[in-house]
């Protein structure tokens, strides 16, 4: 039986705007993702996709509901404990890459290894030497030889590959990608997406991608639609272009 790595139950999140009624962004989201799954979350602009991803990634708090990461309940943890859990089990790929411009590609990739409790030994896994592991992943995403390049010397596609390598460096259980190809042209987007899919498959990592782009979404194993704060399986009519895959939550 495949291990469930991320579970969300009845997630609710609202924001209170000045002088206005509370805006309910998430109204009871349920989601279960197993190791190796690839999930696309689609939805209109402002539907709350990024908020959902931030909640699942423990980057923001929720009003109610439960989040479980690798069998551990995470929604009520302290900030430091959430940071450690994030570091241990969750990788992020952001639309704007979010690389530190003063650091080289290799240092950016190795960054998560410098935080967290067990970067020297990751459970029973082989010892993670930051530089060695970073070079390994840069090679995996096709950036061998660019280890010392700063982000400003890399193209958008290359920067996103560095971000993908960084997301994988801690051997996370799940990678959360927020519009990972949103800032790239079609050809580069396709290539970067392939790198992301190949790398997550290679490392056995679950992948959740928030996207507007059906072409990206159809390459995922499962497609979900965030509509009015609730996740739905993508309607069949919309999925005609999809590559298909398991649709059960």
């Amino acid at each position, binding site marked *: 039986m495949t291990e469930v790595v991320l579970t969300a139950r009845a997630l609710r999140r609202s924001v209170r705007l000045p002088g206005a009624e509370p805006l309910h962004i998430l109204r009871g989201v349920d989601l279960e993702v197993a190791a190796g799954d690839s999930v696309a979350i689609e939805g209109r602009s402002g539907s709350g996709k990024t908020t959902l991803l931030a909640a699942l990634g423990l980057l*923001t708090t929720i009003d109610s509901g439960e989040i479980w990461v690798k069998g551990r309940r995470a929604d009520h943890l302290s900030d430091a404990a959430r940071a450690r859990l994030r570091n*241990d089990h969750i990788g992020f790929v952001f639309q704007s890459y979010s690389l530190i411009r003063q650091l080289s590609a290799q240092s950016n990739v190795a960054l998560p290894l410098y935080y967290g409790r067990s970067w020297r030994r990751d459970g029973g896994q082989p010892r993670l030497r930051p530089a060695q592991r970073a070079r390994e992943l840069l090679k995996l995403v096709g950036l061998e030889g660019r280890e010392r390049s700063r982000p400003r010397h890399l193209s958008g596609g290359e920067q996103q590959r560095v971000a993908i390598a960084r997301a994988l460096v801690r051997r996370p259980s799940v990678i959360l990608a927020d519009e990972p190809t949103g800032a790239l042209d079609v050809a580069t987007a396709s290539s970067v997406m392939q790198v992301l899919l190949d790398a997550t498959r290679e490392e056995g990592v679950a992948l959740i991608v928030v996207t507007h782009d059906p072409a990206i979404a159809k390459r995922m194993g499962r497609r979900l639609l965030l509509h009015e704060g609730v996740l739905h399986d993508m309607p069949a009519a919309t999925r005609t272009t999809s590559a298909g895959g398991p649709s059960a939550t």
Partner: protein
Amino acid sequence: MRLLRHVGSELAAHPGRSALSGLSLFIGVVAIVAIFTIGLVTFEVFVAGVEQQSGRRITISTHVDVPSRDPAAAIAAMNQALTPLPTAGGGFAVLTDAHGRFGRPTEFRDGSPLTGPNVAVTLVSGDLGTVRRLPVLAGGWFDESVDYPLQMVVNMPAAQILGGPGSVWLWQPTPNSRPLQIIVCGVIADGSADAHAYVPLLNLARLHPYAVIDAGDGTDSSLGVELLLHHPTATTAALRELAVAAAVAAGAQAPDAVERIDQVDHYRDQLRAQQTAFLIVAVIALTIAALGILNIGLASVSERARELVIRRAMGATRTQIVLQLLVAAAAIGAITAGLAVVVAVVGVQVWAPTLISPQSAATPPSFPWAAAGWGLLASVTTTLLGAAIPAALAARLDIATALRD
């Protein structure tokens, strides 16, 4: 170890900011030390000059007419009466002026006066070097226990005329007296631009009492001498009592007028304003350095905040972020502060002495550790603040919102 890696990564990621912060701190500390050192040197030069000319702090002077029938015995009795003073950490000197015609040993012809250089001479008994600040530049003071050959100490202008230690001259204590062989035994800085020699009064009195009586500022029946008494903590009244006791011991009348002649307190009062000005300049320098460091920190708050939020998204805790920045700032502070102190110490040891004339009685200042300490404290505190502000801001931000912005 992990923290050190963070710090290394932090410093490597921001070499420009690190260098600028370090430079500001470096300049701040060195400027503080330099300003304080200049202040100390100025103060020391003024005080030293005053002590050189008129005596160290708390010095009294009085005129005593010593009976001239046995000047050596009278001077010895005065010295004996004043013995408690050097024992207690003070000093005294008995002075009288003399004729100063010198000549080369080869040029003296019996009966004819010397035609060599004319140098002002003061006959001295006691320890004038304790009463006035008179640094010895070469050789040393004469030894009053050795009567022959007669020795003398000269100041720098006199040394240019008579030569340094070991130079042998003939000297006529009075225009009509028989010349005496006299040897230069030391050169001192007395602050005078005129040539001046100091000859041991007691030895001359023992060897040629009439020469002393004729030379001294007195009459046939008495020898007029100036008595200088110094003690750093004694009261003027106590010194006056000693002066009276010394005069009586020498068989002289108790002196009428005893006055304090040192000017140290007077000049210290005047220099206090100057010291305050130096302090203000030091504080301004430190403030400018501090503002520079703070500015470097604040100028990059938004950029730093985004970077730190990314680090938090990657799993850094708030504590790790704050610690990382503070330790990095402290590392910059420690490295540059250490460097600044080394440069400042070398500067004070090498550069400060060059500010003082070789003929001045001033001594090179010691390193102003207190000023350097305050400078370091203020600079390191500011460096830490400059680092802590972005760290605190980043720690408060909601990661998701900050990354979206």
